[in-house]
């Protein structure tokens, strides 16, 4: 059937696409601004009017990784010339790199970044691992009160972090888990497990039961059928669930703020704490932000087909 198409509609269509273009620019402008600040020379980060065109440099990223201190007098030329190129960039800003013996002292950033990575990766593996088994259980076997159990599982995800964090803080203090990786990992697993069960259940429901039944007829045990037939079929779903869990743990702020402060502190509470008082060095903060956001941006593209499912706990698939 031919759709009635008028010139008015065509014009409207054009206007809508212009609207999309403008909206995209507006939405991406804040991200562009923080990303461009990460490559600015410090004196151009806070100019009036804001600087849009500049020669990008990577000095903010160097400053992000090394411990440095303001110098009282300029560096002598011999030392400057002998220094590697990245150290010269620090000297250019009137600062010097701190060393113990000959080794460069690293700033806290790489350490916090690693904490984020450790906590996010381990908690993701555990949450998705448990979640996959549980989802299979719910998908394939009948159980009394199944709907209530699933609601219970989902409701644990909806608890406000602060409400859980207060008793967790007291309990962790009693057993010495405050400010440890293990403590944070346990909480993130608890937080992500319900999400992983719900999402994986959606994926499991889509795998035809006949596959396993055929395997059972062929002489597989139920466990063999699960490992050799179901898991490979569910691989895409497992990967998508894992990426979602990783992003949630990576981004989490409230628990990390309340339950860690130094040793196990992750990047989200650390990055804002760098602001401090006085004149903040926005270029270095922006560099830290960009490095932190980069994995999430990449994963968003990897996940684009599954985003809808992810944000609705697997309920809406399309």
């Amino acid at each position, binding site marked *: *059937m031919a759709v009635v198409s008028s010139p008015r509609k065509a014009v409207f269509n054009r206007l*809508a696409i212009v*609207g*999309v273009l403008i*909206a*995209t620019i507006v*939405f*991406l402008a*804040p991200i562009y*601004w923080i990303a461009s600040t990460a490559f600015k020379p410090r004196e151009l980060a*806070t100019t*009036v009017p804001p600087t849009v065109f500049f020669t990008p440099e990577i000095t903010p990223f160097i400053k992000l990784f090394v411990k440095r201190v303001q110098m009282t007098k300029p560096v002598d030329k011999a030392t400057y010339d002998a220094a590697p190129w990245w150290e010269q960039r620090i000297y250019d800003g009137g600062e010097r790199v701190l060393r113990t013996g000959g080794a460069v002292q690293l700033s806290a950033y790489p350490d916090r970044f690693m904490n984020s990575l450790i906590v996010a990766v381990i908690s993701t593996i555990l949450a998705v691992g*448990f979640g996959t*088994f*549980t989802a299979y*259980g719910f998908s*394939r*076997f009948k159980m009394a009160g199944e709907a209530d159990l699933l609601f*219970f*599982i*989902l409701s*644990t995800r*909806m*608890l406000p*972090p*602060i409400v859980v964090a*207060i*008793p967790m803080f*007291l309990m962790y203090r009693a057993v010495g888990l405050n400010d440890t990786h293990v403590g944070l990992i*346990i909480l993130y*697993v*608890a937080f992500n*497990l319900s999400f992983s069960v719900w999402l994986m259940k959606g994926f499991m429901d889509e795998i035809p039961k006949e596959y396993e*039944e055929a395997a*059972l*007829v062929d*002489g*597989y*045990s*139920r*466990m063999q059928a699960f490992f050799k037939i179901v898991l490979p079929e569910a691989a895409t779903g497992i990967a998508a669930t894992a990426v979602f869990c990783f*992003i949630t743990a*990576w*981004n989490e*702020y*409230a628990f990390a703020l*309340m339950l860690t402060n130094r040793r196990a502190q992750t990047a*989200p509470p650390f*990055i*804002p704490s760098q*602001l401090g008082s006085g004149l903040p060095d926005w270029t270095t903060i*922006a560099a830290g*932000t960009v490095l932190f956001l980069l994995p999430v941006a990449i994963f*968003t593209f990897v996940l*684009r087909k599954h985003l*809808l499912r992810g*944000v*609705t706990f697997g*309920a809406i698939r*399309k």
Partner: protein
Amino acid sequence: MATAVMNRLDPRSRAAARGWSDLTIRNVFIIPTIVFLIVFNIFPLIYSLGYSFTDFSAASNEPVQFVGLQNYRDLLTDENIWSNFVITAKYVIVSVAGQMLVGFGLALLLNRSFAFKGLVTTLLLLPMMMSAAVVGLFWRLLYSPSWGPINYIFGLGDFAWLSDPDTALYAVAITDIWMWAPFVMLLSLAGLSAVPKHLYEAAAIDRAGSWYTFTRITLPLVSPLLMIALIFRTMEAFKTFDIAYIMSTQPTTELISIRLYKQAFQQWDTGKSCALAYIVLIMVLAITNMYVKYLNRAKER
């Protein structure tokens, strides 16, 4: 179902005797998760329920005294707490309404075919995938009074968005709208693309106006997904902590969860904060219940 599978098996294969029974597998797969969630989600709540009836402070060594319902009575008659709830309500309304309007609007614009549609959609979804704490941080740069690009673009001079008590909450809400309108957009797009084309064709043949088509065909068919987006965002906005905590220190942006945080971890009024946590928890559970009902209804369709 388990027996149904076995019945269909060739009895000589003795499948039932191979490995674990289905019942064992079900229990081994499900029970550890339930136990884990009870230990790390429910047990802490029971623990804090106990403390909510005491004057316990985590920062002092004084003996803990049982005070009965005193904490709850104090909280429910405390005007400051009510003002925190009013601020939270204002924040929820402004930010969720903004997200719904902007998100649904974006979806209507995107709901047509054009070059790079997939790329544009994914780019628009980026904000909601980011850490709220970090988003709040870099919006502080954008809002900066003397050299922030927002004031420059709108010619606002050195207007201090985040330290003016009248605008701080709205400034935070704008950031939240930027971050979460894409979520509404994503759900709306799913709803819009599910509207059968033939309905529009029939409407066109009947020479129905575009407003009529929109209100009689588009809206009713997308509304279940809009409802899910609305409830979910309401629940999340009610719990907001990070973005507002990072962006502003104004008393006018002290949402209920920020208040709770301060009471627990700055004033160390542990017993009372456990009681407040329970009041908040009951409210969240009420919204969650609604959310799950809608989610299940959407699933059935």
